[in-house]
């Protein structure tokens, strides 16, 4: 199961957990699994999030792969100038 780290202000929507485990093969599946397990996270996911999977920042790609042992960090949707 991939380990997904939530920033502090998201934790109240996931029973206070800093890290949750989800079964997912892609970033999109991970978002869907998170929203199913913790519906309070759905607005944040719908608003747009970036992620870092095993150190690589992925701004916006549902198809990016997630491995069973991946470490994922949720980030605010990144913008650049």
């Amino acid at each position, binding site marked *: 199961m991939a380990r997904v780290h939530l*920033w502090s*202000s998201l934790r109240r929507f996931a029973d206070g957990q800093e890290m949750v485990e989800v079964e997912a093969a892609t970033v999109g599946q991970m978002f869907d699994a998170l929203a199913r397990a913790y519906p309070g996270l759905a607005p944040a996911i719908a608003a747009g999030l970036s992620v870092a999977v095993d150190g690589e*920042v992925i701004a*916006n790609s549902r198809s990016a792969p997630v491995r069973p042992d991946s*470490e994922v*960090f949720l*980030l605010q949707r*990144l913008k*650049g100038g």
Partner: protein
Amino acid sequence: MAKDEITKGYRLVGTRPNRPDGLDKVTGRARYGADFSLPGMLWAAVVRSPHAHAKIKRIDASKALALDGVKAVVTRADLPTGLEGEDLNLQENTLAGEKALYDGHAVAAVAATSQLLAQDAARLIEVEYEVLPHVTDVDEAMKPGAPVIREGAADYSVPEGMHPNVVRHMEFGHGDVEAGFAAADIVREGTYKTEATHQGYIEPHACVGQMGEDGRGEMWVCTQGHWYIRRMSAAVLGIEAANLRVTPSEIGGGFGGKTTIFMEPLTLALSKKAGGRPVKLVMSRAEVLRATGPTASASMDVKIGMKKDGTVTAGQVMFRMQGGAFVGMSPIGEALPCAFACYDIPALKHEAVEVLANRPKAAAYRAPGSPMAAFAVESLMDEMCRELHLDPIEVRLKNAAKEGTKSSYGPIYNRIGLVETLEAAKAHPNYAIRLGPNQGRGVASGFWFNHGGETSVSLAIGEDGTVQVSIGTPDIGGSRASIALMTAETIGIPYENVRVNVVETGALGVNEPTHGSRATFASGKAAVEAARQAIAEMCRRAAAEWEIEPEAVEWKDGAAQPAGPNAGKFPPMTIAEIGAKMGGTGGPISGHHETNAGGVGASFGTHVVDVEVDPETGRTTVLRYLVVQDAGTAIHPAYVEGQYQGGAAQGIGWALNEEYVYGSDGRLQNTVFLDYRIPVASDLPMIDTVIVEVPNPGHPYGVRGVGETGITPPLPALAAAIAEATGARLRSLPMSPPKVLAAIKAKRQA
């Protein structure tokens, strides 16, 4: 040149050929947004609110419409309803609805047969306002009793009990911060403020739009991203994206400010009402400053714990940022991860709020959020280094993030080059120059994520063996040259045989704008893949001619060649020979690649600046300036150096002079470049550059992206230099002569 000693093994990558747009630009042949015109074209002008916050009670355009030559007027009533989220924000900013939310907010637009007539007509449009209380300062906007700008605008993230102007909240961290502070020898805190600054692009926004009554439209526009212009304009006007074709002009600077729409949809709305005649709208400088997105202003608390040897034990930040009267426009989501990104610190706490204020809708500006965060964190780091009599580069080296470090925002870094930039800065002759009276030296480091994103590129082989590459990322910093170099390197042909064109929305799949320092990285990566596809096809054509298996053909030096002892003996078949015959060997040869580009490599930089401060006037003169930054691989070093120098120049302006000055009436006071003081050539020294190359493994040539990091360190580096020169630490930008003089006087009195 450090750079030229490092790059090895490439024929063209790392060289400095002439820029493909150079002749057009120096001869005036390049066509910018305002250069475009069409037969029968009308001119538009915009009516803007003179109030920072006001109810719009009535708009009467009858006098304007009565003028001979006035063809159309649009107000919010002409736009569709029912939009939500960012689409509603965009529409609300294009034309105000019930309320004007800032000085300069567009209220109506008019099209007429000449620019002067349109401007006269705009003055005849009567708008009745009910002026409301306003607030423009981020800290004031959070106080009890501050006027509420948009009731119920806060999103899911805001805890209960905060002022309604607080619309977003973010918090993260790791480790035990209190234990980290307890383990430190000194713990220091500071509050730092930065004013909003504008990207200051020399070319104002300009657009020609045409839309018939059938809802099909076309735009010619100065932009960093024409697919974004298409999507946003279509949303605001309620039309389908496929019915809108957008062609970008040459661009005279963007720096993030041209990644969104401001007035562009108005040209289409006016055109449709005027029977499909094209409509041109060119902003004045005052309109650019009043009504297009500057960056956010920020108020920031920082706390750092440090041991006597310079080891940082813990850090904590609380950022308050306003991005205007629209939710989601401040860069808190970028500023927080950037704050401590340069360092490996065991315990960190980050918190930020976004606050609404009666200011224009902010837009991205070069490494959004990172310069403010660096000003706060790097300034306090410098203060603590000085207190402990430690060398600022040594302290940064002691705490520097490197490959394998768990970053301040969570993920573990892959190969990064911060340490290399610090070592190069330490070894540079500038760092050893002895300083004189009233002179000071400042050092700071900076970070930007960089970005990949949605990218589509096509490449076509010509009948003479030359190559055309079609890209969708407007060239604001040399990407046509760098993409031509990478394509020519990959195919094995001269640089001059590759022409790169920025094409319109109908010619490629969706491309994100040139933002996030991504154009050379992402469009370049896609161009290399497209070139490889074309090479594979050219090998197949040669194999067919030679009647051997395609696997027995390799591509080398711009030609197909038989590979291995069993392939037979054939002379190389050049790209020119293959191109000349391609009509008869299977038709056109092209390559195409589309991707959401991954493999992004973060970029770090370190700056060293020397200043002299006149103790009688407070004026700061920048004596010398050094930028050291990791480019991954510098494809065209001259352009990379230009990006480094440009970032430093903008950062120097932000640090020393630039600011949005609002009167007590909430109106912007400095709406022209005479009063909004960007640095000019005479304000700047020659900016020295050192290109560090720690190749990014996620790119075929090691590119990281270089556009943004360079604006981050100047703010704290200059504050540190001024502190050394004067003994006075300024924690509020800009460090303009009156503020520096006041700080010197206060220091003397103390």
